[in-house]
């Protein structure tokens, strides 16, 4: 273990703490660190409603969803052997989104408790589809990304069409469908937490088997691995993480693409080392984008899903161009 590696996790945690503080302090009503502290601890403080009831759940949800998307992205890149894989970009989040919109518009279902199951089913369907298209290694990385983009576009068009046809039911989902943390509350957090926890445990459990699988099925089997089981667990983890994350705050792209790539620069291609970095740095990106969205459009705000898409686009292009050279 090199010196740089030993310092990496504490450094990343430090950055995450700073971002969390910013997320609590910045918004339509900017607060000093002292005011944030009072807002957290003192119910009599004037900042209490803003900090405790709005920004704190929003920050916690951002932490969880960011970590989920980052870890899911790393799993997906390992599973498909494709450095351009991202659950947002490949349509997994959009699949969850389309299922949620369908459930709302067609069956009149509302409330996270019912919708989360639809989100998981939608994410599951698209995950399997993506895996069948590109997971067997027949498709080039670009082909998989292209197929995913097409699936993504079709799902977004579907969501848009349903929204147009049924404006009443979906008016309040308008922000949700672009990816937003604005409606965060603690019931949402506790509702999705068990799914994320299970997804995280499965992700941790299949990290080392996925490392063996990266050498090819024959080598992995010879090492005592079970490729089919490993793939099934990894897909289940991706579905739980992305489905629950999307149910809570809508489809968010690029977080799962950028962060694992960044993490592997520090760690090398070992998944057990990459995942902790993803779980810390992806929330940094998501909360950072959320804070940025609150700053650039003040006193209104830009949805976090739009900010990550704007930031992620150029990174994706660089990644594609960089691969060619």
């Amino acid at each position, binding site marked *: 273990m090199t010196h740089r590696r030993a310092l990496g996790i504490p450094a990343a945690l430090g950055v995450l703490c700073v971002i969390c503080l910013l997320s609590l302090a910045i918004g339509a009503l900017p607060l000093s660190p002292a005011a944030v502290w009072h807002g957290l601890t003192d119910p009599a403080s004037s900042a209490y409603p803003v900090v405790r009831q709005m920004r704190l759940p929003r920050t916690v949800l951002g932490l969880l969803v960011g970590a989920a998307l980052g870890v899911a992205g790393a799993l997906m890149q390992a599973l498909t052997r494709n450095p351009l894989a991202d659950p947002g970009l490949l349509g997994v989040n959009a699949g969850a989104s389309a299922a949620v919109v369908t459930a709302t518009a067609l069956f009149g279902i509302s409330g996270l408790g019912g919708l989360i199951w639809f989100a998981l089913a939608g994410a599951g369907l698209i995950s399997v589809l993506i895996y069948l298209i590109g997971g067997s290694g027949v498709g080039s990385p670009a082909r998989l990304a292209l197929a995913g983009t097409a699936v993504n576009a079709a799902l977004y068009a579907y969501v848009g069409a349903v929204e147009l046809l049924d404006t009443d039911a979906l008016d309040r989902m308008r922000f949700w469908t672009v990816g937003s943390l604005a409606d965060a509350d603690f019931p949402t957090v506790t509702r999705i937490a068990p799914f994320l926890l299970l997804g995280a445990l499965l992700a941790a459990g299949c990290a080392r088997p996925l*490392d063996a699988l990266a050498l090819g099925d024959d*080598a992995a089997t010879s090492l005592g691995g079970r490729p089919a089981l490993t793939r099934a667990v990894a897909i289940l983890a991706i579905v739980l993480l992305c489905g629950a994350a999307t149910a809570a705050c809508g489809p968010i792209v690029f977080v799962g693409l950028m962060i694992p790539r960044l993490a592997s620069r520090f760690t090398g291609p070992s998944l057990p080392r990459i995942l902790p970095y993803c779980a810390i740095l992806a929330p940094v990106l998501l909360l950072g984008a959320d804070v940025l969205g609150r700053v650039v459009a003040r006193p209104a705000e830009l949805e976090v899903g739009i900010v990550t898409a704007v930031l992620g686009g150029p990174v994706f292009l660089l990644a594609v161009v960089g691969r060619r050279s």
Partner: protein
Amino acid sequence: MQPNHASGPASRLAARRLTISYTHRTVVRELDLEIPDGSFTVLIGPNGCGKSTVLRALARVLKPSGGEVFLDGTPIAGLPSRHVARTVGLLPQAPITPDGITVAELVARGRYPHQGPLRRESPEDRRVVERCLEQTGIGDLAARPMAELSGGQRQRAWIAMALAQDTELLLLDEPTTYLDLAHQMDVLDLCARLHRDGRTVVAVLHDLNQAARYATHLIAMRDGAILAAGPPATTLTADLVQQAFDLPARIIEDPESGTPLVIPRVHR
């Protein structure tokens, strides 16, 4: 089909009535095979004769459609996969090199069957990885990315990975393919050294003369069946080459090693 334990295999790794089929084609039919303990066994035969298929079945990477592979007298299919992985290692023909991996990181993945699902590398793991890097002569390349290595160095790294698995039986599927002659000899010398150190080594090779020079036990196959098995000096005959490859050849003595040397006849 009940394996007959009373007259079970005498060697640690063996196959009985092994039948292997792909979707519509039976590649190996009712094959009996023994890998003599402590041997350097080389499988030879024409392309598509099933030698790689047999090797993969011996490593339990491929599930036979009939018959059994026995490891230490027990059907391998019923053994825990971790136990098998600690006893038999296979270096496949075309393993995948993960993007950006270094030599040491690749070799460390060979430790997989010795680690729990969540356990990190132990000092023992690190010692074994270091030893395997030294044994394969690539200790000074440990920190280098695989992508920067030459073909010969890369193959050494893969052998080191298989070695790090720390198995008594080591199977190598065409370890010399894609290497130039010097690197082929280099890899075979390495295999011979691993064999001398006490391992049972089984390799699929294409070059008959290299097989004759390095093997202690030769198995010649054609159309999924064994034509002959035994020490190269008595096994590799002109008849066998004719039968296996439809190739008229003379056998002379290798002036360097004294082993059989196959000289294809001129026919124009």
